[in-house]
């Protein structure tokens, strides 16, 4: 679970680090990816794993679209850009949830009879269900890919440069607008991958994103906004904390452990573990 949190958070962290924007519709991005997986799975009877690239590509487009239509405008606000962007992504979240209700109804859906499901492996005496293990593996790969993209390619360097100084990059011929759009696209694709994997073993309903979004915010904040390594570590910590709290107290209270860790960390270090913002 921690690795999925980490990948969801990575998309959020990328966008935040790049342009100082917290996407409050991030959970709804995840929900959209899960419904896309479900819908395509039902329509085409394809395996969710085979749909991975398709969903990732569609989510990339969604990210670019959202940036082009809404975010870019909100960033041009003369006053209180900060509030404008909070509430534009907020409105987006509400709208996406409404759309999901309209199209898919609020019923709980799930992808049944997947070849991975209802199997588990015994790893060092701990039983792990196969879909979750596969999800963890894919998320780790996704994370690695994202890391390589940012650390090893020209695009990644342009991204870093844009993050460091938004004005100066224009002087050296980097198209800031394009970088932002691509950043949103990649953020969307990354959460898309997490959504596909989550859809193989988790219920899908219009409000599903909200649960994960809060955890993603906490994950990102825990690791420090804008730090990818922080997101990975934050995700793992949160997955572990959640599991431990669920053992200690009633399962319905398990999120309190996460909340407590968040408060503790940001109070001791108000920028998160690895944050520089």
């Amino acid at each position, binding site marked *: 679970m921690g690795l999925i949190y980490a990948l969801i958070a990575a998309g959020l962290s990328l966008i*935040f680090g790049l342009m100082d924007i*917290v996407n409050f519709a991030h959970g709804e991005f995840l929900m959209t990816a899960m419904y896309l997986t479900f819908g395509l799975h039902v329509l085409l009877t394809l395996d969710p794993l085979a749909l991975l690239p398709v969903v990732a590509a569609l989510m990339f487009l969604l990210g670019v679209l959202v940036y082009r239509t*809404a975010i870019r*405008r*909100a960033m*041009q*606000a*003369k*006053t*209180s*850009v*900060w*509030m*404008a*962007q*909070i*509430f*534009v992504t*907020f*409105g*987006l*979240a*509400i*709208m*996406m*949830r*409404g*759309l*999901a*209700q*309209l199209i898919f*109804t*609020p019923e709980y859906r799930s992808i049944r009879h997947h070849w991975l499901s209802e199997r588990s492996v015994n790893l060092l005496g701990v039983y792990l269900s196969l879909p979750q293990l596969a999800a963890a593996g894919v998320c780790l790969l996704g994370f690695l890919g994202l890391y390589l993209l940012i650390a090893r390619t020209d695009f990644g360097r342009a991204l870093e440069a844009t993050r460091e100084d938004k004005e100066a990059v224009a002087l050296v011929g980097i198209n800031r607008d394009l970088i932002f759009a691509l950043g949103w696209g990649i953020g969307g694709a990354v959460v898309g991958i997490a959504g596909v994997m989550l859809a193989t073993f988790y219920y899908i309903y*219009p409000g599903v994103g*909200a649960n994960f979004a*809060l955890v993603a*915010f*906490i994950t990102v*904040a825990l690791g420090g*906004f804008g730090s990818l390594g922080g997101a990975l570590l934050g995700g793992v910590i949160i997955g572990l904390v959640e599991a431990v709290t669920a053992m200690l107290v*009633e399962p*319905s*209270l398990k*999120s*309190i452990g996460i*909340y*407590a860790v*968040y*408060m503790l960390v*940001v*109070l001791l270090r*108000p*920028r*998160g573990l690895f944050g520089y913002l």
Partner: protein
Amino acid sequence: MRLQGLPLGAAVLALVLAAPLGVRDPFFQNILILTALYTALSQAWNLLGGYCGQVSLGQALFFGIGAYTSTILFTRYGVSPLLGMMLGGLLAALVGLAVGWPCFRLRGHYFVIATIVVAETGYLLFLNWDWAGAATGILIPFKGESIVDFQFQTSKLPFYYGIVTIAAVLWLFSYWIARSKWGFYWRAVRGNPDAAESLGVRIFRYKMAAAAASAFFTGICGSFYAQYVSYIDPDSVLTFNQSVLISLPSVLGGIGTLWGPAVGAVVLIPMSELVRAYLGGTGQGTDLIIYGALIMAVATLKPEGLCGLIADLRKRGGRGARPAADEGA
């Protein structure tokens, strides 16, 4: 100039007080009450989020504390909800101070997320707290029409005038505070905390005061809501959605403006109620789509809110036809 706004306030109040004469249908009276309730709630949010710039998305915690305090006192100990309301507000203010003390060290997104986290913790605790009804909630039994018990069955009007009183008091409070030394300090804290602090404004203290005032009024509204619907559970008063609903009228109407919350609530609440009633409501999500689209439209086209739009129009009307240069930017 000093009393600018008061005549307008009096005129609006007269209109609001007379409104039930023309509206006799309980459905529309319910809309009136909810509109006044969210005007008050959002005005309270505006004290902290608008004037002082500390965006809280955890107001449901104070709303819930107010609702639970008066309800538990009334159902278990027979304390009048009018007294319970005050105690609920005070308790909410205390919690606001207790929450603010650690949280105001945080800035920006870290603060916003902290408010969500604290409120969600409260939600989970109430959900599992058997003494406070846990997930089943508390039903407030009807003990007969009475002002002391704040229960009325034959007419919704007492509730209406009750909430209008709360909203009017809060409006006057905001009016007064925005012109006082405190209002200027709050806006300084919002505009540039570092500069304010270097000029000797003790920002922490002013943030705490804003939090206490905001929580107090939110708690009072919570008690009112509990008496009005006579049933509360964590899902109706303590959720994140409730926190968002509280902040939205201000955002729509204009953050940090005196009339913003009222304007926003007048647009938002009737619209969502009507959409829900006529488009077949539950489950279809049409209301959410319209709601979300409206918020996005305001945030992208006019981040200053509807009040900013009205001010623009007035300016344009006053100085003759000015080219629409600042629109659509």
